C-alpha cells in the first residue's frame, strides 16, 4: 500500500521536475547543447502514453475476457483450441513487425499502434481468464445452477467475481508489458514517452533516452503496484478473519 504512494510520488516528481534537473544533465553530458528534452512537456507525453496504453489494453481486455467467457460456455467450447492458438500467435509476432505491416495499410498514427499493442496484450489476459474460470470448483457451479441461477446470473454473480483475481493478474502483466512496448509507437509518429527515447537514439543524445526511459520505468512500477491493490481488493473476502 505504502509502496504505491511512494512510487506514485516519485513518478509525479519525475514528470514535473525533469526541467529542474537541467543542471544535473548538463553536468553529466557537457557536450550536449540542450540536455533536457523540451519539444513537449513530459506531462503531455505521459498523458499521451497512458492514453495509448489505456485504449489498447482496454480493447485487449474486452476481446480477451469476452473470448475467454465465450469458449468456456457449452456452445463455444469447440472454439477454445482455435482461440488459444490465434492469441498465442498474436503474442509471437513482435509489435514492431505488426507496426511495419500495418503502416502501409493504415498509414501512420495511433490506429496501427493500438492494433499492434492490443494484439500483443491479448495472450496473458485470455490465458488467465481461462485459468480463472477453469479454477472454479464444480460444486459451486452445481449449487448456483441448482438454486435457480440462469447462465447470465451464474456468470455475473459467481464465475466472474471468483475468477476476478486471476483475470486481474493477467491484465496486470499485459498492461505492464504494454507500458514498455508502447514506446515503439513513436516509430510511426505517435507522441509517447518513446519520442524522446527514439530522438535521443537517433541524435546520440543519451540524456533524452534516460529521461524518457526513467519515466516509463516509474510508470510501469506505479501501475504494477496499483494492480497489486486491485487484486487484493478483488479477493478481500479471502482475508477476513482466517
Amino acid at each position, binding site marked *: 500500500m505504502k509502496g504505491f504512494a511512494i512510487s506514485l510520488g516519485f513518478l509525479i516528481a519525475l514528470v514535473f521536475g525533469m526541467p529542474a534537473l537541467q543542471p544535473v544533465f548538463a553536468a553529466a553530458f557537457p557536450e550536449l547543447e540542450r540536455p533536457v528534452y523540451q519539444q513537449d512537456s513530459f506531462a503531455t507525453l505521459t498523458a499521451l502514453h497512458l492514453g495509448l496504453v489505456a485504449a489498447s489494453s482496454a480493447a485487449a481486455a474486452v476481446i480477451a475476457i469476452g473470448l475467454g467467457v465465450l469458449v468456456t460456455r457449452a456452445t463455444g467450447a469447440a472454439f477454445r483450441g482455435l482461440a488459444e492458438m490465434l492469441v498465442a500467435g498474436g503474442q509471437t509476432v513482435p509489435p514492431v513487425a505488426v507496426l511495419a505491416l500495418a503502416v502501409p495499410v493504415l498509414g501512420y498514427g495511433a490506429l496501427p499502434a493500438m492494433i499492434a499493442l492490443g494484439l500483443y496484450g491479448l495472450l496473458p489476459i485470455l490465458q488467465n481468464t481461462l485459468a480463472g474460470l477453469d479454477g472454479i470448483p464444480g460444486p459451486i457451479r452445481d449449487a448456483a445452477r441448482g438454486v*435457480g441461477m440462469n447462465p447470465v446470473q451464474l456468470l455475473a454473480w459467481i464465475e466472474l467475481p471468483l475468477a476476478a483475481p486471476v483475470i486481474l493478474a493477467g491484465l496486470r502483466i499485459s498492461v505492464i508489458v504494454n507500458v514498455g512496448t508502447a514506446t515503439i509507437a513513436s516509430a510511426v509518429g505517435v507522441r509517447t514517452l518513446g519520442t524522446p527515447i527514439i530522438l535521443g537514439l537517433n541524435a546520440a543524445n543519451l540524456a533524452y533516452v534516460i529521461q524518457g526511459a526513467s519515466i516509463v520505468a516509474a510508470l510501469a512500477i506505479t501501475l504494477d503496484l496499483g494492480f497489486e491493490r486491485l487484486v487484493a481488493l478483488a479477493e478481500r473476502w479471502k482475508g477476513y478473519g482466517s
Partner: protein
Amino acid sequence: MIAFEHITRAYGPARVVDDVTFTVEAGEFCALMGPSGSGKSTLLRMINRLIEPSGGTIRLDGEEVRHIPPQTLRRRIGYAIQSVGLFPHWTIARNIATVPRLLRWPRERIERRIDELLHLLDLDPAAMWERYPHQLSGGQQQRVGVARALAADPEMLLMDEPFGALDPVTRSSLQAELARIHRSTGKTIVFVTHDIEEALRLATRIALLRKGKLVQFDTPGRLLAAPADDFVQSFVGSDIGLRLLSLYTAEDRLRARETAPGEPISKEINLRDALSLMIERGVDRLPVADRGGPIIGVLYAADLMQGRA
C-alpha cells in the same frame, strides 16, 4: 408429491438409472440409498432438471417437470449439497439470501428471513452478516447450506449427501436438526446418502438402488424386517435387531403410570441406547421422564423384545 414413472438415464450404452418407478408422498422424508454408482444422485438431480432423463416422466403434484422452466422449477425446490457448494465470496447472510434475491423479494423481507433462518439453524446472527464461508467450521457451513436451501420456503428439499464430509458428532447433531426441521415444517425431503445409519435415523421411507434399478422402496422398519433380497439384507448389515431398536423411542414402549428407582431417561431416547444403559447399569427396567419433567412411566427390558416392525 414426487412421482417417478419409468425413469431411465443412459450415457451411451450404460444405464445409470434404469426404469425406476415410485412415488414420494407429500411430507415424506425419502432417503435415496445405494452403493456408489447406483444412480441415486442422478435420480435426485433429475427432479430439478440438473440432469434430464432419457426416458420416463417425473411429476411434481401431477405436473410434469419437463414442462416447468428449469430456473422457475429450481427456485421452488430447496437444494443442498456438501458444504463446498457455498459461494465463497459472499457473506453467510448473502449466501442464505440467494434464492429470495433471485425471486426479487423486497429487502426487508429478505433480511427478516435471514434472521429467522439463522435462529432456526442455531447460527449466531450477529456474526453471520459479516462472515464468509471459509471462516466457519464444517458443521456451521453445512447449517448455512441447509438454511440457504430453506430460504424461499420451498415446497420440498433435495439434499445430496449434505453431511458426507462431517465428523460423526457434528453429523449426528445436524441429523437431529434436520429431523426437527422436517417435523416442524412438514416439507417433503429427498435425501441422497450411502450411510444406512443416516437413512434409518432420518427417513420415513427408503428407496434402495442398485446399478440403476430400484430394489426396494419401504419404511425403515420394513427394510430391516423384510428385506427384498440378499442385496438389501447385506446392505442393511448384520445388526438388524439393534438397528430395529434404534428406530423406536422409549415413549413407544413404556408402561405408563409406573415408576422405578434410578436416574430417569428421556422419553425421546431410542431403544438401542436404552438397552445399552440397562446393561451398563445392570438393571432390567428404567424410569422414563418427560423432557426434564416428571416420570411418566417405566421401560422394561422384556418389552424391548416384542412388537417387531
